[in-house]
């Protein structure tokens, strides 16, 4: 009876470390994705500035980059909505 009591905390510890590793990985991925979205916004802004300054003469390049930035941002917002939804689902959970 006492032996099983000792073996239980061991398994819990293992699970915990695995979970933290996964969380960190997810956090990193999320940060990377947000960085990419930010990069697209900055890139779009830069090309727009260049176009207005006369350095870029392809109007479609400007608009396509703007659309890319817009769609990436929308994707980021959708992911954020999902995360918030999941959080609210958990916070509503009965204990």
């Amino acid at each position, binding site marked *: 009876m006492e032996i099983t009591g000792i073996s239980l905390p061991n398994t819990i510890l293992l699970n915990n470390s695995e979970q933290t590793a996964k969380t960190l990985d997810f956090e990193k991925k999320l940060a990377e994705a947000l960085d990419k979205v930010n990069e697209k916004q900055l890139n779009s802004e830069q090309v727009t500035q260049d176009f207005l300054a006369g350095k870029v003469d392809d109007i479609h*390049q400007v608009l396509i980059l703007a*659309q*890319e930035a817009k769609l990436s941002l*929308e*994707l980021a917002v*959708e*992911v954020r*909505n999902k995360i918030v939804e999941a959080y609210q689902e958990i916070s509503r959970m009965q204990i």
Partner: protein
Amino acid sequence: MAFFSSFQITASALTAHRLWLDTIVDNMANVNTTRTPAGGTYNRREVVFEEILDAKTGFTGAGVRVSRIIEDTKTPYRYVFNPNHPDADPNTGLVKYPNVNINDEIVNLLAAQRAYEANVTVFNTAKAMYAKALELSR
């Protein structure tokens, strides 16, 4: 992001066709040009489109680009008799005008316009598909 590669392919096509448009416009602008920096009559120019291969896979298409602009020296020139013209042949009095045919250029212009429009449609479709994909999470 791989989804945006279609945007980049469309962008390359739009850039290439804009350059084609510029070439046609240049031909039409120089329809009566008898003097060029290189000397002689203006030769009509044509673009040569080239496929871009994807750098990673090497066999997937990644768009189009204009590989070079060639001078058309095969189409016959237009000779007009005008001895008063400074560039007229002193013996015959004929002026050698460029080998640009306005009608052909107009047809090319329409083709360039339609190709550009088609690529814009492709872009809009790709955009709509992406927007639809975002609706999956709702």
